[in-house]
């Protein structure tokens, strides 16, 4: 029985590696070098804070993945001999006014209540924040802090997953452009532009934005859209910033990564001066001492967004052997996608209940 995963990004590879660990035979079909790839453009956070404030199941799912991350990272590192630089440091979100502080606190308190009181965070005044991050500037009023947040080198994660899939007996075919999927009763045929044909006994669609085209062929709605985000990175700097935030983190190599904008501009992954200038202004608001730091690169990438921004986990209503997986937090959810999602796909008794993530909600 062969499982084919369409999509060789972090989502597809995390799941493929998990399926391989569960004893399945897996082939991953991946696209070309120039494809839109959120896996190569993302910010690299393993993030809990504030996620799912309107969707407690998502908050729980996120936390379960974040809690699995340390073990997941250790195992990948041991298998692949790569350093993922995963650190569960706790993370902050900066606030610039008292009102912003109050709103943030209210939001997190509400979430805590929805989760039955189990949701760790604290609010830090500017003075408290300065104890942890001495270089913050005077415009920062305070921050929220969550000890379960962390960050990782997302590119090394991608490489490690790619290596782990191979080392575990999986196959990854690159430069594959799927032209058409022909669903049969118990199998699907995947036809490529170059004329190849692959037959799947089980098929997982993890094709990111590619699911827009391919999903409906398997009976999925696949209502995903691109949302552009832009990111800057500076030259390597002395390590001064231990705690990541949603907008600023110091990567393991030393660069300060600054993100991330949100724009609904379709399939446009070009960086622009106005957006990057506002990101730079934010960085120097938080850390005035960064004014002289040189930006060496900027980029834009496309998030894969569902209508409400939350993941979709859906078994095809028409073809029992087909599953659809998509989310915009592939890094945070990588551990859950590897450790828990295979159980759901394989129909195990201990599978997570993912019914609230069905596309029936759209």
């Amino acid at each position, binding site marked *: 029985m062969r499982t084919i995963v369409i999509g060789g990004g972090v989502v597809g590879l995390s799941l493929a590696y998990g399926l391989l660990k569960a004893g399945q035979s897996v082939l991953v079909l*991946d696209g070309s070098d120039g494809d839109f790839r959120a896996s*190569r453009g993302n910010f690299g956070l393993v993030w809990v804070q504030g996620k799912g404030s309107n969707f407690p199941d998502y908050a729980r799912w996120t936390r379960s993945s974040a809690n699995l991350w340390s073990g997941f990272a250790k195992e990948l590192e041991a298998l692949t001999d790569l350093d993922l630089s995963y650190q569960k440091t706790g993370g902050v979100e900066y606030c610039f006014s008292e009102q912003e502080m109050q709103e943030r606190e209210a939001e997190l308190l509400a979430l805590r209540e929805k989760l039955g009181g189990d949701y760790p965070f604290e609010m830090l005044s500017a003075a408290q924040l300065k104890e942890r991050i001495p270089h913050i500037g005077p415009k920062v009023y305070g921050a929220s802090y969550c000890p379960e947040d962390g960050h990782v080198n997302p590119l090394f994660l991608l*490489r490690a997953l790619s290596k782990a899939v191979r080392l575990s007996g999986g196959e990854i075919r690159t430069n594959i452009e799927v032209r058409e999927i022909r669903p049969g009763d118990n199998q699907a045929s995947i036809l490529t532009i170059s004329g190849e044909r692959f037959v799947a006994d089980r098929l997982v669609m993890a094709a990111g934005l590619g699911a827009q085209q391919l999903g409906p062929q398997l009976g999925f709605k696949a209502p995903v859209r691109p949302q552009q985000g832009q990111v800057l990175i500076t030259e390597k700097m002395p390590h001064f910033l231990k705690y990541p935030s949603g907008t600023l983190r110091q990567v393991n190599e030393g660069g300060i990564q600054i993100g991330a904008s949100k724009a609904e501009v379709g399939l446009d992954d070009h960086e622009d*001066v106005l957006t*990057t200038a506002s990101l730079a*202004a934010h960085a120097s608001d938080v850390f005035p001492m960064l004014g002289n730091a*040189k930006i060496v690169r*900027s*980029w834009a990438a496309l998030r894969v967004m569902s209508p409400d921004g939350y993941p979709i986990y859906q078994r095809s209503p028409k073809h029992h052997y087909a599953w659809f997986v998509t989310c915009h937090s592939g890094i945070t959810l990588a551990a859950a996608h590897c450790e828990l999602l295979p159980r759901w796909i394989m129909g195990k008794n201990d599978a997570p209940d993912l019914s609230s993530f069905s596309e029936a909600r759209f």
Partner: protein
Amino acid sequence: MIYDLVIIGSGPAGMSAARQAAELGLQVALIDEQSQPGGQIYRNVAKASKQQLDILGPDYCAGRALVERLSHEQIVHIAVATVWKVQKDGFVYYTKNGKADFVQGKHILLATGALERACPVPGWTRPGVMTVGSAQILMKAGGLVPDNAILIGSGPLLYLMAVQMLAAGCKPKALLETQTFSSLKSALPLLPRSLAGWVMLSKGLKYLAKLELAGIKRYTGVEQISLHGNENAKATEAASRVQFVHKGKRKELEADLFLLHQGVIPNTQITRSLELAHDWREDQVCFAPQSDEFGRTSCERIHNAGDGAGIGGAYVAALSGPLAALDIAYSLGVISRAVRDEKAKVLLKKRQDALAARPFLDRLYTPPKDWRLPQDETIICRCEEVTAGDIRSYVALGCTGPNQTKAFGRSGMGPCQGRYCGLVVSDILAHETGLSQQEVGSYRIRAPIKPVSIGELASLDR
């Protein structure tokens, strides 16, 4: 104000284009990183001393006329300005005196010239190993001559440099040349029977005769070059020895300075960042942006002239600049097509004649295989210290394109943004995957083209 034409780069192509455009009545902004116009080939030429001019020779002096012709009321020279983003809509962002700024042009001419091809031999990152071009710049702009130096590689610049060093009284210790007798044999049929061919050949022979007369040791067909420090010191030592194989024998020479050169390639950072169409040029072993005889690129508002559009040298660049300017003036409706074509006729003819010698040079000095496909241990990305073997290991992980190699191992992600490793990565990937370089493609280049500070960028917010 909106300029009719913004020219980036004030080498021979940019300077000659500026003058031609100004004479046709266009308002021109000429942006360049250096304080003096001239580009790298005519670096500092207007300020050079008589002694420098004597040593550097008549080809260098030729740049003075181009610089003098820049004084024209229609030309604004924005010097010491580092361009970090060029947009298809005509906006050019740059930093000058620590401040970010921009100019807008109805048209843009890219005249960003060439870069020296990477020289990835073991030890090429050590201090004390530089490029021949860098040593020329030091002669032109710094008044410094390499002393007790060994020149390594191939190309006409290697001999020119050696002759200039002789003239300055600093005899090169040796020349280690990678071209072989068979490269000469395959190039000879391409030698043009025209005047240009004979001029070039006689110039080359004159250089070689001078080197011979001075008793400079030349090793040709040299292979397996590697640079080493002092074994007794830490690995952090600067280079003091070169090892190589000559006629089947392993040899070693000591020197204070090692100058590498393997020809030049178009600087495609801006054209790549604009996602203009590029072609793999097998004759020149590099990528070049597509451009027609007037330097039109795949983007309507953007022209490209000089070595950045394909290597032709300074003389050809000074003809291509005015050709682009004529076409831009025509596009802006300043001159008619007939006037453009009439004025272009002589320039096109001269350029064609000058380019006749190019195939011979390209073949003769084609980079050797072991410089294009270095051994596994050799660093190819100087910034991020990625080796050729690393790139090959990413291919084993299914990586078929340069952008995935960036993701897997950070090659091309340092401050130089792949200027030196880009071509080598594409070559290695092509070799390992069996795809062509055209199919493999190239790094995607993003702004900033050169680093810009957070403060500078933030000053453009709102």
